[in-house]
């Protein structure tokens, strides 16, 4: 990070959400001269550090990336040698982005054509450049396509597989990466191995002594649908609070209530735990248990037990092992290190070289780390610069097109609501409500000065925010970083307002992530009687 020349920080307010990562970016900006472009509908705390802020319309990222791609091609700035050596599908991509002229890009994204051009040229001409993104890209119904659009830019310019270059999705929790790596996604077994691959299954079956089902499972949003249809009747929730954290909260509660059996393993009595038939009180994994997490840079790190958990709680591994035993299967390896060593056997290509001893000695190691003398891997994909068989499979361009958010503003719901994080709070506030932040201001509806003037509100006035799914009442807060038409809330303060009553469960087909970043809402001072509100008369309003 500290030695890269250009960073596109896309759909991310890392200054708030990843503050220590942002330190490294700032060292680059201050010491190396890194140029920063922030692409975000909001002029965020991160954007204040940018050489240029590209304030695009919510959900117009694909159009922006495609316009940049077209400009890079037409200006002759693509990395021809890299594309010829390592990529497939370039011709189709070039054809696909042809319609995204700078003028069309400006029309679709709201970013002036010359700024799109400048950003494209800066990225393409840099010797080393990175694209870093977060939920501003991935919490959209076309998130996978948007990520493809960014990958396309990276392939076009060859900013991959080199020191100081690459693609960097910044993870929002200490083990988002690790959870996926360990197979907590519908299509993978531990070590990110395909469950549909018979050879992989056979290896696990032999080790575990059980037959594995071969099918890809449901992702979160598919599970919610299946609950609604009565196809999924029992649910075991571990350390998640979907009643508050999932889009369209009213609907989520409705389908959770349909379950025959809901088990929640938690450290708190969350809203979801309140709905459960059985609650299994457990320990805080980051300080009351030992284990590993994997951070954004694929670094496997040790979490260690520092304090004793409260009485009556049980360790998470103990619970899972005990459930196994009562279901008639001894799960074998007990204890975090024994389980880790089992993983090293089952996924040696990634983890064999990572003993607990080495993880402790080196403050973590980055996978793949396949042998005891391997230093870990600082960046991936350097194979794309190699020739012939060493290069491996070509990296494909994927043609993707602009659609924009599912729910677009209209006369009845004229604003686009987007969501994000405050610096001092976290997700649904379960953990961060436990300390007193001097900065905390609770939930507000952040709105541009122009819109506030137009509907006659000032900071502190209570407003009713309504979408087609529900409504909440919160104080307004004027934010000069917002452009007209866009309003902002967080998910941190469900005691003030459950923002997810408003959000839409329109989810990405491949990843199953809902479009938290865009839904249409109306905003009115709470005192006035609004037609939208009477239409929603039966909906519960959170105060």
């Amino acid at each position, binding site marked *: 990070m500290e030695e890269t020349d250009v960073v596109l920080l896309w759909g991310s307010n890392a200054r708030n959400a*990843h*503050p*220590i*990562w942002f*330190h490294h970016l*700032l060292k680059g900006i*201050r010491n190396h001269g890194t140029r920063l472009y922030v692409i975000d509908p909001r002029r965020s705390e991160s954007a204040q*550090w940018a050489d240029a802020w590209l304030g695009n319309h919510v959900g117009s990222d694909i159009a922006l990336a495609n316009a940049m791609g077209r400009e890079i091609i037409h200006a002759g700035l693509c990395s021809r040698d890299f594309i010829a050596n390592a990529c497939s599908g370039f011709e189709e991509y070039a054809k696909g982005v042809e319609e995204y002229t700078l003028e069309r890009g400006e029309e679709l994204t709201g970013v002036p054509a010359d700024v799109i051009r400048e950003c494209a040229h800066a990225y393409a001409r840099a010797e080393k450049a990175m694209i870093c993104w977060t939920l501003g890209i991935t919490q959209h119904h076309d998130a996978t396509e948007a990520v493809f659009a960014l990958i396309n830019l990276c392939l076009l310019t060859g900013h991959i597989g080199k*020191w100081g270059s690459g693609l960097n999705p*910044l*993870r*929002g*929790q*200490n083990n*988002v*990466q690790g959870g996926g790596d360990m197979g907590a996604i519908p299509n993978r077994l531990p070590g990110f191995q395909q469950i549909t691959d018979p050879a992989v299954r056979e290896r696990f079956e032999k080790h575990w002594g059980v037959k594995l089902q071969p099918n890809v499972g449901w992702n979160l949003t598919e599970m919610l649908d299946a609950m609604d249809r009565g196809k999924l009747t029992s649910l075991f929730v571990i350390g998640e609070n979907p009643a508050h954290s999932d889009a369209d909260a009213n609907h989520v509660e409705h389908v959770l209530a349909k379950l025959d059996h809901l088990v929640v393993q938690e*450290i708190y009595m969350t809203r979801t735990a309140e709905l459960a038939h059985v609650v299994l009180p457990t320990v*805080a*994994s*980051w*300080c*009351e248990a030992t284990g590993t*997490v994997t*951070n*954004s*840079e694929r*670094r496997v*790190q*040790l*979490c*260690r*037990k*520092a*304090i*004793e958990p*409260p009485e009556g709680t049980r360790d998470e591994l103990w619970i899972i092992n005990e459930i196994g035993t009562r279901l008639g299967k001894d799960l074998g390896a007990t204890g975090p290190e024994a389980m880790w060593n089992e993983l090293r056997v089952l996924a040696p290509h990634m983890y064999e070289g990572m003993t607990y001893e080495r993880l*402790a*000695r*080196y*403050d*973590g*190691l980055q996978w793949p780390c396949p042998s005891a003398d391997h*230093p*870990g*891997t*600082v*960046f991936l994909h350097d194979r794309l610069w190699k020739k012939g068989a060493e290069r491996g499979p070509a990296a494909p361009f994927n043609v993707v097109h602009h659609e924009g958010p599912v729910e677009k503003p209209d006369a009845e719901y004229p604003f686009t609501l987007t969501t994000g994080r405050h*610096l*001092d*709070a*976290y997700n649904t506030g379960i*953990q*961060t*409500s*436990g*300390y*007193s*932040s*001097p*900065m905390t201001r609770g939930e507000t509806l952040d709105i541009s000065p122009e819109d506030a003037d137009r509907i006659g509100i000032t900071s502190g006035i209570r407003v009713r925010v309504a979408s087609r799914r529900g409504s909440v009442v919160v104080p307004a807060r004027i934010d000069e970083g917002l452009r007209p038409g866009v309003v902002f809330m967080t998910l941190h303060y469900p005691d003030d307002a459950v923002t997810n009553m408003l959000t839409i469960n329109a989810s990405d087909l491949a990843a199953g992530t809902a479009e938290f970043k865009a839904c249409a809402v109306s905003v009115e001072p709470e005192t006035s009687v609004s037609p939208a509100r009477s239409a929603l008369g039966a909906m519960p309003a959170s105060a």
Partner: protein
Amino acid sequence: MSSAHQQLVRLSRPSSKPKAMVEISVDGEAVSVPEGSTILDACKKLGKDIPTLCWHQTLTPANVCRVCMVELEGARTLVPSCSREVEPGMKVKTRNERVDLTRRLVLEMLGSSVDLSISPGTPEMIAEYDARPERFGPDAANVARPVKDDNALYVRDYSKCILCYRCVQACGDDHQNTFAIAVAGRGFDAHISTEFDTPLPNSACVYCGNCIAVCPTGALIARREWQMRGDNTWDESKQTTTDTICPYCGVGCTLTLHVQDGEIVKATSPFGNDVTLGNLCIKGRFGWQHVQNREAD
């Protein structure tokens, strides 16, 4: 731990030009260090213990405390070892009457004007150099002023401040780039201040506490530690430290949890950790209380 990791990272890094080595002599012993190193680096390489107050391993030297002064042959004045870069053939003396006198004087002036009672290592330093701050008498000028207690997370007791600038640099361009504090006033009135001396909650402060982490005297102190010291219950001999990983985002900051009597009383991060360089954000440094709020609502 972390230098081992840095070696690993270097293996994957494109080769940068190796730095030329510079040889100097310290107390008659020859030592070679890469160009750009300081005299202090060379002394450390020889295992020599040079006292420092304002110098910190993660910060640009501010050069203000003058306790690390050494004698350099051919130089008119003593030189600060923390910031003077090595040049070939330098001859350095780290202890002699002149050096000791300077260090003693600095420690006596600081010790007579500032409360150094909870500054780790400083009372020992005062003893080693036979400094006697009390010789200025009970009426010696001092920087005593009321404690600033204006927010829930930390307390500023500038009676303990030696104006080392560490907090200013950690808040400023060395790490946090928030620039909430700077030195205001001149001479004896110089003090660390927010803009217009406004209370912290009205300032630019984002409560990362990275200033607390580098404060060498306890002038900046987390509320929990301050309260426990006030109650006489703070006891570092009873504390254990455990390194774990912060839960609040995917960066993977190492959190060192300081535990006394089964309770987390402080969170820090190791200065040698190359993810954090000892820095944390408000959530990492202060957001751990939720695991200890164990009363039912």
